[in-house]
């Protein structure tokens, strides 16, 4: 591979501690190095911002529910997408869709924005093959997927007896056969309860027929996660997503992590990653007195280093919601009466898909928009704060640059606030107007690079520009010494990077994809003592309940032809 020298850019990087000073970045054989020979190709980055490739810690970008969205929303391609993405360009494949982009558009859009890694946030283990088929077909970005465990019968049965060893042995087996990355929990107990027409609306609400509570499930999974020493922590979508007055449940959920210690060799410090926290920071008793509780939530988060979170910013677009939180989607379809689909995934989880319009004319949507921004702006530790849109639930990931603009510029927030139909009522229900903070480029780099890399246990290879790390480098047309007076320029610069290098190769130049990269599938091989009992239980469940045989369940190696396997060892 060739050598590249990126000269004179304004570098923002936590790992090397450079905060906007001019520095050169040298690249050789796909890694950042100290220096390169005089034969290196040079890229002039003077007057531009240079950051490591960004990481998306939570997005629904591959798998059955994403594809279900594509099936039942042809209009997302026709009206919201480019009408003629189908015209083939020389180096790239056709791109389609807006809120549920095709795999090619997904990969290209991330690369255009300077993102080098995306975490598929909810993989139903039974459909892991489908998830990996899509990951394999998504160009450029490295990806991994989190299997869902929060409504899994095995987990319920082992944790009912508080048997962490068996739970861990099962998790270790499942991560291996599904090529998964870590432990995702979605509405613990609630999705299973919904199979009986019920839900779990608090951490002490019992799951019908299983005699276990969301609190016990979550605590047990945290213990199993630290027993296994996984690179990522438990990644939780708590109970009561989207309900007015859900903030106390969210705080109860965060308290479950108190008293534990992170045990891993990957530099991860948190015990619980609270995902799309925006959807879980509401006050009020109904949609009439719906309001922000971002301050209460952030008061807790700021004091507790064992918690990391991502925002889940509402971007005020027409989008497609999709989650393993079955009861939530059913509830949402009863609110907006649009198309609706719910699926039960035998023994493991469920999911639903409903289109949704976050309209600036609708009071709760405007409050949700404000809550997402408040969370990021009230955060004291940018390394524990990550920016997402819970793609595509609160908006498509292609709107990240717009979220950056809002976070970096109070004026644009004020303008949006004033433009809402119920602006007065929204201002009363939120505290966004009182927050003057404007995030700096360095803070943005913490929230999108070093922060997520550390939380995912990838800090030794991603999210920074120190020698030895992967040469994922984004160069933006933003001059920190002369920031544009028009905030729209910020959004534009982050939308179409001047250059994006993935593993030392230029994949995007002037916002155009020039190379399809060599993407990798990351997964975690969690080594734990084998349990004969668990092996027997698995075999029995396949014989008695599953509609597939155990032999057809495992994801074959051919589904991840370019794997990057991280080994974790149990703390026995």
């Amino acid at each position, binding site marked *: 591979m060739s050598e590249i020298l990126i000269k004179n850019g304004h570098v923002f990087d936590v790992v090397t501690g450079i905060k906007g000073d001019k520095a050169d970045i040298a690249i050789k054989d796909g890694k950042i190095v100290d220096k390169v020979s005089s034969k290196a190709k040079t890229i002039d980055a003077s007057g531009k911002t240079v950051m490591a490739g960004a990481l998306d810690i939570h997005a629904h970008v591959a798998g059955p529910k994403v594809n279900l969205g594509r099936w039942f*929303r*042809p*209009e997302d391609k026709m009206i919201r997408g480019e*009408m003629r993405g189908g*015209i083939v360009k020389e180096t790239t494949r056709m791109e389609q869709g807006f809120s549920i982009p095709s795999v090619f558009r997904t990969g290209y859009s991330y690369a255009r924005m300077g993102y080098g890694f995306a975490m598929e946030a909810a993989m139903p283990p039974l459909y892991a093959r489908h998830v990996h088929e899509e990951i394999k077909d998504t160009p450029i970005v490295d990806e991994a997927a989190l299997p869902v465990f929060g409504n899994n019968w095995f987990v319920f049965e082992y944790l009912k007896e508080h048997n962490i060893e068996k739970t861990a042995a099962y998790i270790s087996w499942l991560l291996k056969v599904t090529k998964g990355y870590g432990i995702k929990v979605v509405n613990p107990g609630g999705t299973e309860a919904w199979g009986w027409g019920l839900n779990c609306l608090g951490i002490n609400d019992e799951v019908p027929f299983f005699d276990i509570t969301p609190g016990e499930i979550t605590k047990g999974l945290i213990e199993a996660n630290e027993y296994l020493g996984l690179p990522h922590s438990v990644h939780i979508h708590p109970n009561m997503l989207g309900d007015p007055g859900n903030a106390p449940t969210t705080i109860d959920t965060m308290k479950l992590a108190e008293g534990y210690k992170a045990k891993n060799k990957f530099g991860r410090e948190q015990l619980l990653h609270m995902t799309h926290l925006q959807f879980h920071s509401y006050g009020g008793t109904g949609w009439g007195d719906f309001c922000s509780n971002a301050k209460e939530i952030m008061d807790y988060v700021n004091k507790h280093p064992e918690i990391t979170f991502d925002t889940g910013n509402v971007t005020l677009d027409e989008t497609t919601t999709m989650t393993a939180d079955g009861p939530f989607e059913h509830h949402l379809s009863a609110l907006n*009466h649009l198309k609706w689909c719910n699926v039960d995934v035998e023994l493991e989880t469920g999911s639903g898909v409903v289109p949704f319009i976050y309209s600036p004319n609708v009071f709760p949507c405007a409050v949700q928009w404000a809550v997402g921004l408040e969370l990021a702006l009230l955060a004291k530790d940018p390394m524990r704060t990550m920016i997402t849109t819970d793609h595509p639930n609160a908006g498509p990931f292609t709107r990240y640059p717009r979220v950056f603009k809002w976070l970096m510029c109070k004026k644009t927030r004020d303008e949006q606030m004033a433009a809402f139909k119920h602006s007065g009522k929204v201002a009363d229900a939120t505290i966004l107007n009182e927050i003057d903070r404007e995030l700096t480029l360095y803070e943005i780099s913490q929230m999108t690079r070093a922060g997520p890399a550390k939380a995912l246990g990838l800090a030794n290879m991603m999210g920074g520009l120190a020698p030895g790390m992967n040469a994922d480098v984004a160069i933006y047309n933003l001059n920190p010494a002369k920031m544009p007076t028009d905030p729209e320029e910020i959004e534009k610069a982050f939308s179409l990077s001047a250059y994006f290098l993935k593993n030392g190769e230029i994949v995007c130049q002037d916002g155009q994809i020039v190379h399809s990269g060599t993407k990798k599938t990351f997964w975690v091989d969690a080594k734990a003592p084998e349990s004969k009992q668990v092996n027997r239980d698995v075999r029995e469940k396949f014989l008695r309940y599953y509609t597939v045989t155990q032999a057809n369940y495992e994801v074959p190696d051919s589904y991840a032809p370019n794997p990057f396997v991280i080994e974790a060892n149990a703390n026995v």
Partner: protein
Amino acid sequence: MKTATITLKTTPTLYLEADVITPDAFAGKSKDEILALPVYEGRECYKLGDYFEIAGEIGDTPENTKIVVNGDCSKVKYIGAKMSAGEVIVNSSADMYTGAWMRGGKLTIKGNVDSFSGLGMEGGEFTVEGNGENYIGASYRGDWRGMQGGVLRVKGNVGSDIGTFMNGGTLIVEGDADVHIGTHQEGGTIIIKGDVNRRVGGQMVKGTIYIFGNMNYMMPGFKYTQDVELEVDGYKGTFAEYIGDLGERHSKSKGQVVYGKLYRKK
């Protein structure tokens, strides 16, 4: 208003997708710039000038721009799609998606149009002097927003599935229509002056349908309420009023349940 005339000189082998034939795309451009606008045939991109010649003058704004299209355009799709103002006259037949998502202005087709014309139309005046095919004034596949505003008049006959998911505007067919009229209708008005086949107003929750001619079968979800005197598109007379579709969820307005209304000329 200034008038530009474009004439089809090369008939496409496949079908030509020309959503640039709108006052919005033409306004303020030179003739060379207009002839360089992109059109698509199959998977390849071409220039408008590869197929059309241009004469006349071009207005500075869409409002001041009138486009007359000559030559046989029966293989040209998307004429007038998304247009917001001005005028387009096609002196022949046009293919699918003519006037789709049109927002304003005036669009006249002297011949026939194919399916999906006036799809999701939001405003303006769209007149077809010949016949239409299926899905006229309907929603795009999968979408829940059909025709939303404006007036779409077909002087001849139409095919099936017209006005699906319609929620505004007026769709007038002076001839006959086939099955599935106003399916899922949530507003707006459909007037059929000729005969219809069956399945009229299935799953409709709001809006109005007038049928002047015969109907082969009535949907079982409709209930007769009364006879009323009405004036509909220039005709005065007695109509039988039905409400429906009673199998659907209906909203309430001021304490009253809102139903879709179906009127049949007596």
